């Protein structure tokens, strides 16, 4: 929309659709909450550090309170013991919210096919984007972020998309 153009006169009026304006505003103001538990969280540290620098993409305001975040990044293995905590964090985030599952463990349990590891976080909460890898390279996570932003901008995500989702910890 060219709103970033400094040469633009101040008293300009722009005709656009409300949805479009909202999408544009949301795109670069995602506030991630990192639910980091294991090795993948260490790779997230790299994503946040200067070399990969997530702030280049407008998503660096990392919050550790789910109340202040709209993007949940699950980086690490989720065990059954962790399940209720993750669910609570997810529930505490207000809409609109998005979820990225980072790494093989969060996506599917990874190579921990055993008694203590949940076989993918989508057993308990809905996921919007899966990032493969053990751990994924920082570029892979950034790519997921860019994909998400492009979709957020165009309002691809229906706020009711997870209405029918029922996880293992719902209504038990």
């Amino acid at each position, binding site marked *: 929309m060219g709103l970033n153009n400094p040469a633009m006169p101040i008293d300009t009026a722009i005709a656009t659709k409300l949805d479009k304006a909202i999408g544009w505003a949301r795109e670069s103001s995602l506030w991630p909450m990192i*639910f*980091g*538990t*294991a*090795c993948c*969280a*260490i*790779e997230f*540290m*790299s994503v946040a*550090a*200067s*070399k990969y620098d997530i702030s280049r993409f407008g998503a660096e305001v990392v919050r*550790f309170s789910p109340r202040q975040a709209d993007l949940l990044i699950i980086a*690490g*293995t989720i*065990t*059954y*013991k*962790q*399940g*209720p*905590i993750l669910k609570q*964090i997810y529930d505490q985030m207000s809409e609109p919210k998005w979820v990225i599952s980072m790494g093989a*463990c969060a996506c599917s349990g990874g*190579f*921990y*096919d*055993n*008694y*203590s*590891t*949940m*076989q993918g976080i989508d057993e308990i909460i809905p996921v919007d984007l899966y990032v493969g890898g*053990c*751990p994924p*390279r920082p570029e892979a996570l950034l790519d997921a972020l860019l994909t998400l932003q492009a979709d957020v901008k165009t309002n691809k995500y229906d706020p009711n998309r997870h209405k029918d989702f029922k996880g*293992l*910890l719902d209504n*038990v």
Partner: protein
Amino acid sequence: MSNYITIQREELYPFIQDKFSQGFNYLLDITAIDYSEYVKTQDEEFAVVYIIRHEDFKQTIVIKSYLSILEVQTVTDIFSGADWLEREVYDQYGIIFKDHKNLRRVLNHHGFKGHPLRRSYPITKGQLSLCVDDLQDEMNNRLLGKSVVCKLEDGSFSDCSKDLMFLNLGPSHPASHGTIRTYLALDGETIEAAVTEIGYLHRGFEKSCENHTYNQIIPYTDRLNYCSAISNNIAFAKTVEDMLGVTLPPRGQAIRVLLLELSRIEDHLVCLAAILVDMGAMTNYWYMYNPRESIYELLSKLTGARLTNSYMRIGGMTNDLHDDFESDLNNALLKVKEGVEETLSLIKHNRIFHDRTQNIGIISPEDAINASLTGPNLRASGVAYDMRKDNPYYGYENYEFDVVVGSVGDVYDRIMVRFEEIQQSSKIIDQVMRTMPDGEINIKDASIVLPKKEAVYTTIEGVMNQFKLTYEGVKVPVNEYYGSIEATNGELGFFIVSDGSGTPYKVKVKAPSFTAIAAYADMIEGLQLADSVLTLGSLNIIAGEMDR
């Protein structure tokens, strides 16, 4: 090096007590073995194992006792470090420790039924946890012990002297690495009592080992202490090689030393970066973390992966150093040096840093030994124990370096010991590079090391060899063995039971972070809330290794 002793269940406690008075005062590990599917039929199905080291740090004894009934006397009154170790054995094997004051699960969730490390427990049988343990009973007992609460006649509790507020710190808290929960009773900002709960990252490492071949376990070991994956690879590979009775050629050994020290630097960097962020000194995060990126670049070139390298194999490693390894290494070490210098210039004489770290979270040398602390945490308390000096391996005795010790055992010492260890490790790496021998990196034994690719593609023997080794695994003779090295966080050991096949019958990790977190609650009681965060950071708890 180790001495293996078998003894009757009834004599166990007096025997350990006796050994303790003879100077065996450093408990390394407690575990159990379920023999129900073992090759040699034993009379009893279960045995408990205690691994204890002498105060000279040289002799080790492994005490085993077969159990006719699944109950033994607790040794928590001798070793405070036994508390959580016994809880783990109870949790995983269902063995009762008589007179243990708080025998509850530690790794699995409180609703878990059964004991997963028993052979009869199916590996994939998961159990959903519906809610979190409120820990109130444990907290009440703790408060009662300190006379902070009184027990009323109806069995309930009341604050008798203080106005207490209860607070959960973690598990989802940036300073608790997402996996450590500390439940606190606060009077104002002062911590009156603390209870720690772990297990949020218990991902069944030990059970998984029981159905993978030795080389397949290497990637799992990467993810124990994922801040320094290669050091875990080495600890495991070395233990298995010791069981096989083989030693690496000189070049292989030198490369292992080099990578161990590089891992140490890598690990300390991330620990220090994180604790400084916890303190609010954000700038240092970039100074300390960016050198890690140069190490990652080096490791990706060498091993193909940044973080989870899986570089070691039983009997050696995947490949030799790449061509411009030396210049990459020098570049990385230079970055490390700059980062450390920049950081130190900001904090060394910084009043805020001193006030926040000095005399906080103190543990005395006696308590640290008794609680089985190890590595930099133990050395910060002034105990000059370093396996590289006391039980040298891979030629460590030929390199010149200092064992860094602290004097107070507070947060400050634990931080500064790590800073200095980075320098010492660089010094060792320099010496290794200068004296790097030529020659083979792997041992020459077709029953252990995979054949060269050309042989596999061109000869039938090569194909057979490759197939058998991959499919059946490296066959390790029947044995029970404890082996360890000085890894980045301290003594990292593996207790392996082999039944002669290519898959271990049992693997137990002696994890430095596990005993460190067990001592944590005692360290923070009486401190301010904000100090608990720094104390935790200074212990460098790595959840993958703590919870396994």
